[in-house]
């Protein structure tokens, strides 16, 4: 990766130094570990998974996890999945997928939703169940299938159909039908827009980038970096969390298909996607609509050890934040990072692997600028000083949501596994996972490498 222009120089490189803390283990609190985690290949929506239902993809992640960890199904106390745009038929998709994957029908399962941090919520819900002693073994994951979304009849049409259902006599039915108007047939589509502001996320991202004066070139450069690093990681076989998925009636899918390193010249040709004609967010510097699922086996450390596992990482302190859903929709990482570090008693220097969710290049770069601004810290975060920039050489080194894809409900587990796998591969003790989410919410979590 060549240094294309100024912003890459923001990163400061730091010599390996001793950690503020040797471990984040706390007395009298159970250590919680990730035994392992997997995901299906993340695919552009409308490709190989397009005829599936969400629980099919989730099931593939679960069976992949069973295969990878060989965990006896009956040991699993609880299953939690995150998802965002729900298929109405399988609203508790966790349960449907688990049953199909052959888990015991005695293992309860529930589904959580928290926009792009739904899988994070699934994991931390599991952490809570284990920490409080309710469970020892939890499977957490997430799924999203953007190839098929619930397009509904209009409210008027739905009302008419429900009324028709209730109508008893022919006369009543005719009277209901007579109320029908052609415009009732206009369908209602789910939008990737904030309910509270009606603003689409891309539009908000474009405004956010403008507010922080992030240029189009900077965004394209960052997107190119993401794709290049993802390609490299894929080629080098570093994306070990991906499990192959034999799609019924189709070939076995073995890798993510959205990684497309292009050139800045090509990217510069694209027209803005949201704020036309002068905006800066384009299809090339945004994450794309993605199908995919992830799953992760979380256990109390003593349980994992008793079962003979060699865990990959500890799940440590985490933090949820929320802020103005209009003007700060995607600034979750900026708010969550200093808080989770303080909670854990760490500093930015202690972090060896940063894994931030990349919704848009502009969003990542706006977060960088916010994290690097004393003015922002003082005026909006109630802090005396800025938290500072994550060093770029430790940041999303194996690609990110821009290139690997972003199935809304599943990304959280991918981030944690990327951090855990990177710590093992690159060496290092602490990883920081952070993500923004619709609703102006955000999440951050510390992942600690399990001693080898």
């Amino acid at each position, binding site marked *: 990766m060549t240094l294309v222009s100024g912003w890459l120089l923001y990163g400061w490189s730091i010599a390996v130094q001793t950690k503020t803390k040797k471990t984040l283990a706390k007395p009298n609190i159970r250590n919680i570990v990730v035994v392992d985690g997997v995901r299906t290949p993340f695919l552009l929506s409308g490709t190989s998974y397009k005829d599936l239902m969400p629980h099919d993809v989730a099931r593939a992640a679960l069976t992949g996890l069973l295969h990878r960890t060989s965990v006896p199904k009956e040991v699993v106390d609880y299953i939690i999945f995150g998802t965002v745009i729900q298929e109405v038929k399988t609203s508790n998709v966790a349960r449907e997928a688990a049953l199909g994957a052959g888990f015991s029908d005695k293992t309860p399962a529930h589904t959580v939703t928290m926009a792009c941090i739904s899988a994070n919520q699934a994991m931390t819900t599991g952490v809570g169940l284990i920490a409080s002693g309710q469970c020892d073994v939890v499977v957490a994951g997430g799924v999203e299938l953007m190839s098929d979304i619930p397009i509904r009849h209009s409210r008027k049409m739905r009302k008419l159909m429900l009324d028709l259902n209730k109508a008893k006599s022919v006369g009543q039915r005719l009277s209901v039908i007579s109320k029908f108007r052609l415009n009732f047939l206009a369908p209602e589509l789910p939008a990737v827009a904030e309910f509270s*502001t009606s603003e689409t996320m891309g539009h908000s991202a474009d405004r956010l980038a403008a507010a922080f004066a992030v240029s189009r070139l900077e965004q394209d450069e960052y997107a190119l970096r993401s794709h290049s690093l993802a390609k490299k990681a894929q080629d080098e076989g570093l994306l070990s969390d991906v499990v192959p998925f034999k799609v019924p009636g189709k070939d076995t899918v073995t890798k993510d298909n959205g990684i497309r390193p292009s050139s800045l010249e090509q990217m510069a040709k694209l027209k803005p996607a949201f704020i036309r004609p002068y905006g800066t967010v384009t299809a090339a510097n945004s994450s794309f609509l993605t199908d995919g699922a992830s799953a992760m086996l979380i256990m109390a450390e003593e349980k994992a050890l008793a079962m003979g596992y060699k865990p990959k990482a500890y799940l440590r302190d985490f933090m949820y934040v929320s802020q103005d859903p209009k*003007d*700060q929709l995607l600034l979750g990482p900026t708010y969550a990072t200093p808080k989770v570090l303080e909670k854990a008693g760490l500093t930015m220097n202690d972090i060896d692997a940063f894994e931030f969710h990349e919704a848009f290049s502009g969003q990542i770069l706006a977060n960088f600028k916010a994290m690097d601004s004393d*003015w*922002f810290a003082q005026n909006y975060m109630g802090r005396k000083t800025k938290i500072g920039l994550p060093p770029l050489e430790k940041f999303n080194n194996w690609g990110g949501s821009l290139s690997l894809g972003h199935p809304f409900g599943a990304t959280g587990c991918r981030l944690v596994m990327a951090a855990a796998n990177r710590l093992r591969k690159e060496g290092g003790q602490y990883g920081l996972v952070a993500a923004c989410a619709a609703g102006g919410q955000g999440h951050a979590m510390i992942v600690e490498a399990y001693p080898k």
Partner: protein
Amino acid sequence: MEFHDPPISASQSAGIIGKLFCKFILKYLFLIGYICRNFTESSALLTRTHINYGVKGDVAVIRINSPNSKVNTLNKELHSEFIEVMNEIWASDQIRSAVLISSKPGCFIAGADINMLAACKTPQEVTQISQEAQRTFEKLEKSTKPVVAAISGSCLGGGLELAVSCQYRIATKDRKTVLGTPEVLLGILPGAGGTQRLPKMVGVPAAFDMMLTGRNIRADRAKKMGLVDQLVEPLGPGLKPPEERTIEYLEEVAITFAKGLADKKISPKRDKGLVEKLTAYAMTIPFVRQQVYKKVEEKVRKQTKGLYPAPLKIIDVVKTGIEQGSDAGYLSESQKFGELAMTKESKALMGLYHGQVLCKKNKFGAPQKDVKHLAILGAGLMGAGIAQVSVDKGLKTLLKDATLTGLGRGQQQVFKGLNDKVKKKALTSFERDSIFSNLTGQLDYQGFEKADMVIEAVFEDLSLKHRVLKEVEAVIPDHCVFASNTSALPISEIAAVSKRPEKVIGMHYFSPVDKMQLLEIITTEKTSKDTSASAVAVGLKQGKVIIVVKDGPGFYTTRCLAPMMSEVIRILQEGVDPKKLDSLTTSFGFPVGAATLVDEVGVDVAKHVAEDLGKAFGERFGGGNPELLTQMVSKGFLGRKSGKGFYIYQEGVKNKNLNSDMDSILASLKIPPKSEVSSDEDIQFRLVTSFVNEAVMCLQEGILATPAEGDIGAVFGLGFPPCLGGPFCFVDLYGAQKLVDRLKKYEAAYGKQFTPCQLLADHANSPNKKFYQ
């Protein structure tokens, strides 16, 4: 006295232009913004004070920033500096295009300086000002170097005329950014080429709509109309305050467009929609044009009743430009502008403008404690109305009623008020919900211990008011203000049972509270200054225009109305048909006819007021027989609210019919008319002089502190004809002597009710005495 404000799309035909014009006067006067300002310093000779510019690449960025003011105003200094700057830009080889932007986030240019017009003595002087601006803007329009107007905040009057002379317009899409030509509301017309450019830019019907209503147009609407070419979204926090960064971003975007225009990569021409193309095509047919002029003129005549000269002249000027070419159009514009600026109507409207600026200030200063928690007693029309204008300003509001049904009705009223705004797209449904959650409905006094102010809006019954005052004082904190929304009960009598009369004040709102802008605040001898400051602060927050008056029966507004209402009854008794009476009053300039007004206010309320004030003022308030009201009440003819009054009101029926059951009541109370004072004009003047005489007496007795407040109260609260500028302005413009003569004539016929008050007589005796010097 309801003032509707239906959303009218400007692209629609001229047929719907302008709902009742005079109503718009009321509605929009306050929207004009603070056009007028005084310069406290003389502009320095060498440096420019209003405008500076810098060059970025080959784009000149011209920044407008009038010193010592929140707004930029188009005055002589700014104008001459603009000419200087443009000449430099045109002369420079380095510069290929320009961006025109304000350094003030909330204001592009709020309009021309009306003091500049007021200082002129002759129409010719005003015409000359217009012609100078026309010349400058024409040069700007013909500039070979493209100029992009980057608009953030109010862009009104002369500011808009400047913007439409530029080659391209980009506006910030926020609520502060409004475009419009409010000149008509001041009795003048857009005098700097607006009447000629707007029809070409947005089409004739839309241009008429803009100029004849003076409405403010939001940026997104302006984009659809073709008034602006691009929108820029407001930005949130970044590395500097949002407003600052948004302006900077607007400038950046404008620069790219300026470059694009200079490089001919961007065309200043706009793609028109099908409807627009068809309208434009239709307007090329002379017959269609004539029909449009005719239609608009008819509409205006009907609505202004010939009382406002400006709208007709606007039509005339636009017509001249289209039919006889630009030169004739510009000449006509400047001449008519000069003529209009000298009219009584314009002076009256400008007086009102100054008055309302005055009544938007808190003369008591900031209160010691900001009111954050408001409690309202009584969820009736008034109580709920007060709640509605409070919750949407962020005040946490408790609404207490005695019954669940009453409370539910009130809550629904607040919700409906907000929801109507959602339908008009003034609010999102989410904002509505979030605003509505500021309201807590309840039947008990829970939470009153946190209230900073309690406004009671229970029935107009002194003993009931005493009871709630005592109940409330038992639960509220020491600093809490107790305000009574009564329209006639003296505040000192209500305060008589208070443990802390210094905290008791009157806040008289007008119905419907969300539409009527006036708030009459009544102070007693004992009311403390801080209590007054608090009440005014709350009123201003609620968006009200405020007059502060002394306590007394009927205060100011109700008291002025009472003798006029008494006269209404007499006129009806004399056999004038309510419809005729209505038409006589509306043709004098009142927005609502006198008989309709009684129906709207409520016959029972009118009766109540007539009795109370009749007791207080005796014979002077005699005139009509209050028995008329008593009989109406006993028959259940309470006006609009009961479906019957002088008229019959039916849901969904637009043209109301006379209530024929009134015939027998009117017949039983019939008195013979006196022919010497019963001409149409006399009937109008009997009503108006009784009103004006009482208003002047209020000033004489010190109920009113200033004539300006009297005018604002009468126009904004009671619908006194805006074209007359209010009772005091009317005395000045019409002549005190002529009024006194009329009063004496009516006194001779009817007696004491028409005896001119001393102050009015004084003014008649010394013609130099004016309420406004």
